[in-house]
C-alpha cells in the first residue's frame, strides 16, 4: 500500500514537473525580428514641452539614449561622441533623429534638457515626462535605472549607458555600447541612415 502511494506520488510529481517545463519552456515568439524585444509605445514631453510618442518621428531612423543632465561623465561622454559622429555623417546626419530620454524627470525639465542638449548639437531632442511615463518608456527598451539617495536631499541615478539604434519604422536594429570603438559606432550609424 505504501509502495503504491509512493508510486502515485512520484507520478504526480513527474506530471507536475512536466507542466512546469511546458509552462516555462521558451516557445518561439511570433515576430519577424528582434524588434519586439526593444522599443515600443511611449508618450513623453519633448524639450519644448510638447507631447510626443514613439510614433512622432517615424520615417527617420532614431538613436535613443537614456541619461540625465546631472550625470558627470557617462552622459557628457556619450553626447560628445554623438556630436562628433553627427559631424562626421555630414548631411546624412539630417536623416537621423537623436533622442535623449531623461531618467531623472524630477530635475530634468524640458527647458533644462533643451539648453543642455543644444550645446552638443541643436538637432538632439530631449524627452522627459512624469516618473511613471519615463519608467514605462525605459521598460520598453529594457533600460535599467535606479535612483540612489546621497547625503541630504541629493540623489544620483545609476543607469544603462547603451545607445539603441532603431530604423525608420521604429524597429530595433542594434545597440552601441559605452566603450564601443568610435569607428565601429560611426559605421553602425552610417549603415542606419543608408550612407
Amino acid at each position, binding site marked *: 500500500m505504501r509502495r503504491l502511494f509512493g508510486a502515485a506520488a512520484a507520478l504526480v510529481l513527474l506530471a507536475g514537473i512536466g507542466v512546469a517545463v511546458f509552462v516555462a519552456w521558451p516557445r518561439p515568439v511570433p515576430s519577424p525580428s528582434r524588434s519586439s524585444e526593444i522599443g515600443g509605445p511611449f508618450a513623453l514631453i519633448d524639450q519644448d514641452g510638447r507631447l510626443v510618442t514613439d510614433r512622432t518621428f517615424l520615417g527617420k531612423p532614431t538613436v535613443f539614449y537614456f541619461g540625465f543632465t546631472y*550625470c558627470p561623465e557617462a552622459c557628457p*561622454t556619450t553626447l*560628445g561622441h554623438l556630436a562628433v559622429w553627427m559631424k*562626421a555623417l555630414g548631411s546624412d546626419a539630417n536623416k537621423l533623429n537623436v533622442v535623449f530620454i531623461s531618467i531623472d524627470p524630477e530635475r530634468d525639465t524640458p527647458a533644462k534638457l533643451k539648453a543642455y542638449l543644444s*550645446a552638443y548639437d541643436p538637432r538632439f531632442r530631449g524627452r522627459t515626462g512624469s516618473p511613471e511615463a519615463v519608467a514605462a518608456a525605459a521598460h520598453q527598451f529594457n533600460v535599467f535605472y535606479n535612483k*540612489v539617495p546621497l547625503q541630504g536631499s541629493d540623489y*544620483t541615478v545609476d543607469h544603462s549607458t547603451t545607445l539603441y539604434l532603431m530604423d525608420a519604422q521604429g524597429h530595433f536594429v542594434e545597440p552601441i555600447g559605452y566603450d564601443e570603438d568610435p569607428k565601429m559606432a560611426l559605421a553602425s550609424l552610417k549603415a542606419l541612415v543608408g550612407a
Partner: protein
Amino acid sequence: MFTLRSAGRTAACTLALSCLSVAANARDYAFGELKITHPWTRPTPPSAPTAAGYLTIVNRGKSPDRLIGGSTPAAGKLEIHQMSMTGGVMSMRPVAGGLVIPAGGSVSLAPEGFHLMLIGPKHPFRPGEHIPVALTFEHAGTVKLNLEVEQPADTGGAMPGMAMPGGHMDMH
C-alpha cells in the same frame, strides 16, 4: 637591446624634462611631499548641473595622506566621487572617508574611476579656461590649483563650435 632602449628612453626623458619644465610646471603642482599632475576638466554645456575634475596625486612621502574634500569658487560644491561600470550600467557614489594616497604611491582621478565632482557650476566651462579648486588633505592641508578645461583625448567632451583635437577621426 633592452639596455639600449632604456638608455634611449632615459635620455629622452631627461631631455624632455629639461626642455619642457616650463610646460610641465603649468600643469603640475608640488605641495610638500605631494605632487599633483595634469588637473583637468571637460567643457560643459550651459545649464550642466555637474562637471567632473581629474588629476593624479603622487605621494613622495613616507606616510600615507588622504584627500578628504575640497571647494571651488566656480561651483556650489566639490565632492570626491567614484564612477563604476557594471554590465553597461553606470553608477556614481561619493567616496566615503576620503581617498587614501599611499606612501610612495599615487592615485589617479580619471574617467571611469575617481573624480572631483563639481556640483552646480556657476558658468559653462570653456576650453582653455582655468577652474580654481582647493583640495584638502589630512596631512598636507589645503592646496590650491587650477583645473584646465580640455577636450578629452577621445573627443568625448567635444561640442559643436569648439576646437576639437584633429587626427582622431576623419571629419569634413
